[in-house]
């Protein structure tokens, strides 16, 4: 036992010998501890306090609460199923079918990632709602899109890229010789699919399902807009805070929401994702035999086309809404919505959001890289804890993060060392960073695992300190991952709603909250214009980042083994 302790102490001493690295470790642990763990701890302490006991009794006695919990679970299951199916369809068509428009389908599969949280919901309402363009005006039926069906439709379309990308990577990395061996032994196509292909994809399917479940549970925007009377935990928490000003209820509900979210998330993170033996590098491992049966081929193609058409329609229609007088009703062209957003009262939100996200992005990017480096390349006691904490920011639903921040920072800490942060711009930036770091860490970890450690060891054997090695060898080689981490952070921050909805004030306006505002008050035109501007900003930022962080020299290609 004492040998164990001696070894651990020696490990730490070696780590701290690298002065600046030690500071980096302190920084990241300090950040995670203060802004991720502490707010959660505050929620736990409030929701498990004696005052909370009364709230629990009241809530759990009410049938309404159980209805909300059940609603949430049903919604999660529905979205997870639909989204995974869609993702599977698109991935299958990409990898296994020889059909036209594959690049187009790929774009569709990724498009929803950069879109604002309300875009699809609004389009859906205008197209398929009670006075919907398609439902009422075209088909003459009166269909109530609000509720579970609308939620599942909108969220499946918004989240299926996660499933698509996961399954795409998995399918591509599948060894085709396994299927060929099965065929050689006499198995027909369907049997091969059923007994060889599908079982090997189960980790990917399970992964996607679980991830989508968690995303659905955490989402606030859609339940607010298109949920109608179908209340879920996220919207219930929103009501508790904004409607009732009741932090206790909010904290208690957050805990209730945390239980399924965190359980499912960490089940996926530590158990399911570890069980896949295929590495998701996106490189084809061999030649896949495309499906030749025309029935299968063209019906799947048609399905894909149909879904793509729907997606294009939904997103395209936003543009229509942005430039017409009254969305879906009056098609007279107008620029008044854009004027409102860009120059009028709404421009403040646009500037504020972009500024805050722009500040948060490099912070999250660097922090993520630093943590990824520490977790992958350095052995130290507590490494698993750091890994765990670095993922919490996204494992926890946004609303919970928001409440945690309020509980943690609505008074000064440590005798004023940390001032009261609620109501400031800083707290919004911090929320953005906390939500973006996990994605940054993930892409950093994936990239670092591709870089040969021999390279870094060679640098050390030539006299370079850890920092110099990181700066001159590692960082250039993981530039693409760093870049995608930055893009992800910016997009995530710009389109974030649930985390910051409780943190905004009249002084600091955020575009997504404004969109919610405009949509709730029926000013869909303005909301649509906001969406268009938001998408434009994100795309511009992506372009700028590619230009600044630099063209890829091709060096990373050589790093692939």
């Amino acid at each position, binding site marked *: 036992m004492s040998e164990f302790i001696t070894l651990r102490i020696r490990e730490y001493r070696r780590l701290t010998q690298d002065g600046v690295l030690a500071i980096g470790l302190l920084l990241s642990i300090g950040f995670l501890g203060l802004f991720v763990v502490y707010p959660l701890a505050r929620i736990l302490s409030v929701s498990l306090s004696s005052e909370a006991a009364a709230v629990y009794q009241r809530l759990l006695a009410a049938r309404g609460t159980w209805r909300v919990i059940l609603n949430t679970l049903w919604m999660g299951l529905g979205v997870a199923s639909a989204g995974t199916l869609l993702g599977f369809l698109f991935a299958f068509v990409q990898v296994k079918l020889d059909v036209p428009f594959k690049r187009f389908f790929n774009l569709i599969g990724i498009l929803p990632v950069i879109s604002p949280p309300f875009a699809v919901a609004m389009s859906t309402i205008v197209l398929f709602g009670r006075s919907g363009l398609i439902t009422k005006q075209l088909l003459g039926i009166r269909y109530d899109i609000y509720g579970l069906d609308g939620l599942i439709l909108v969220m499946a379309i918004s989240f299926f890229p996660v499933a698509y990308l996961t399954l795409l990577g998995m399918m591509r990395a599948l060894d085709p010789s396994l299927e060929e061996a099965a065929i050689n032994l006499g198995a027909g196509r369907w049997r091969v699919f059923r007994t060889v292909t599908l079982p090997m994809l189960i980790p990917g399917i399970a992964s996607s399902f679980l991830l989508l479940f968690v995303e659905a549970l955490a989402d606030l925007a859609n339940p607010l807009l298109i949920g109608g009377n179908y209340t879920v935990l996220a919207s219930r928490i929103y009501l508790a805070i904004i409607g009732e000003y009741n932090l206790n209820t909010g904290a208690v509900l957050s805990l209730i929401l945390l239980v399924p979210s965190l359980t499912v998330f960490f089940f996926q993170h530590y158990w399911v994702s570890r069980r896949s033996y295929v590495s998701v590098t996106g490189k084809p491992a061999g030649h896949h035999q495309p499906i030749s049966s025309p029935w299968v081929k063209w019906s799947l193609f048609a399905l894909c086309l149909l879904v793509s058409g729907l997606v294009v329609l939904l997103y395209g229609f936003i543009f229509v809404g942005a430039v017409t007088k009254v969305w879906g009703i009056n098609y007279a062209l107008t620029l008044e919505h854009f004027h409102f957003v860009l120059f009028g009262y709404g421009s403040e939100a646009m500037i504020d959001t972009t500024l805050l996200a722009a500040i948060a992005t490099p912070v999250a990017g660097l922090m993520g890289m630093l943590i990824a480096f520490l977790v992958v390349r350095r052995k130290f006691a507590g490494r698993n804890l750091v890994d765990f904490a670095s993922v919490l920011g996204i494992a926890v639903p946004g609303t919970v993060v928001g409440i945690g921040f309020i509980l943690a920072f609505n008074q000064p800490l440590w005798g004023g060392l940390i001032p009261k942060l609620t109501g400031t711009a800083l707290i919004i930036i911090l929320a953005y960073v906390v939500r973006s770091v996990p994605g940054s860490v993930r892409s950093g970890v994936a990239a670092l695992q591709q870089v040969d450690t021999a390279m870094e060891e060679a640098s*050390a054997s030539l006299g*370079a300190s850890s920092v110099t090695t990181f700066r001159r060898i590692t960082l*250039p080689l993981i530039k693409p991952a760093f870049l995608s981490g930055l893009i992800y952070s910016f997009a995530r921050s710009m389109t974030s709603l649930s985390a910051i909805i409780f943190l905004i004030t009249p002084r600091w306006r955020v575009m997504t909250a404004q969109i919610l505002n405009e949509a709730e008050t029926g000013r869909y035109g303005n909301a649509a214009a906001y969406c268009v501007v938001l998408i434009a900003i994100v795309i511009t930022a992506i372009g700028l980042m590619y230009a600044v962080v630099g063209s890829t020299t091709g060096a990373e290609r050589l790093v692939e083994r």
Partner: protein
Amino acid sequence: MKSATLVLDNLVKTFGHQGEVRAVNGMNLEIHQGEFVTLLGPSGCGKTTTLRLIAGFEFPTAGQILLNGESLNDVPPNKRPMAMVFQNYALFPHMSVFDNVSYGLKIKRQSTDLIRENVEIVMQLMNLVGMGDRMPHQLSGGQQQRVALARALVMQPQVLLFDEPLSNLDAKLREQMRIEIRRLQQRLGITTVYVTHDQAEAMSLSDRIAVMRDGQLEQIGTPSEIYQHPVSLFVADFIGRANFIESSVQSRTDGQLTLELFGRSLTLLAPQGEFFAGAPVYLVIRPEAVRVNRQAGSWTGEVKQAVYLGSTVEYEIETHDHFISVVVYNPQEGDIFEEGDQMFLDLPSTAFHVLPRRTG
């Protein structure tokens, strides 16, 4: 160039939560100034781990490493005056050859002029003149290897470390590089530790070979000592090939050992080791020491397998219920046998080596 003595003192390295895997299990080794020592052994014997311990990429569980008498245990890898050449070269793909080679010098904060001068010298030494601007992926395997070596040499290290550097090269290139490495090392006189599983490499490069097995040193000696006087079956079998014939000691007098061989007595003069009458032993004889003849010889045998390899012929010969491997050089000058041939064997007593045998 200052060269160093390196001492491994009871070095232990374990892996696993309870330390189940004892990769290095008590290594004691003394490497003298300017000496070329090879760590040789099969995969999993701990040679690479030992090298990484010396370089500082692994930290010893117990024991220490002394450079010129001073312990390196608390010295991080980038502060050790050693340079390492990696198995897959580990050239920085995003830097030119010049930038790769000058990398360590920049860290040492040498002036630009001095760097340029030093790099030019070492590039000339390694036959890389004019390739400074090329990128690693534009070079052949052999060139990449030379750049890796140049990058290490330009640091003027006190110890040079090699981790199986030639295993990715084809046979001809391997031989060429072997000669170059040896030539350079002798000229520069740098203390060198070399890891390989290829015994031909070890034999041709080393001043001394350290044969390793299961994390421990099995035998250390010059190539001829190792080959002619292996201390164990493992070493005898790992270096070169060997025939092991079961025997026992019949009698022992000063300077002479009489043993049983195929029913007759064999007397060896001045054999090494303590053997008493009645002790079970192995008689070890190398395949190339066995003489074969169609007409006459001490023992008869039947050829069970014959493989003609051009410069040699390899036979498996059955005699007295034993299978003896035989290698004949310049086969054209003597008899060449085929499978099934009956022939004669001669086993010169001077070619035998005796090793203890455990029974039961």
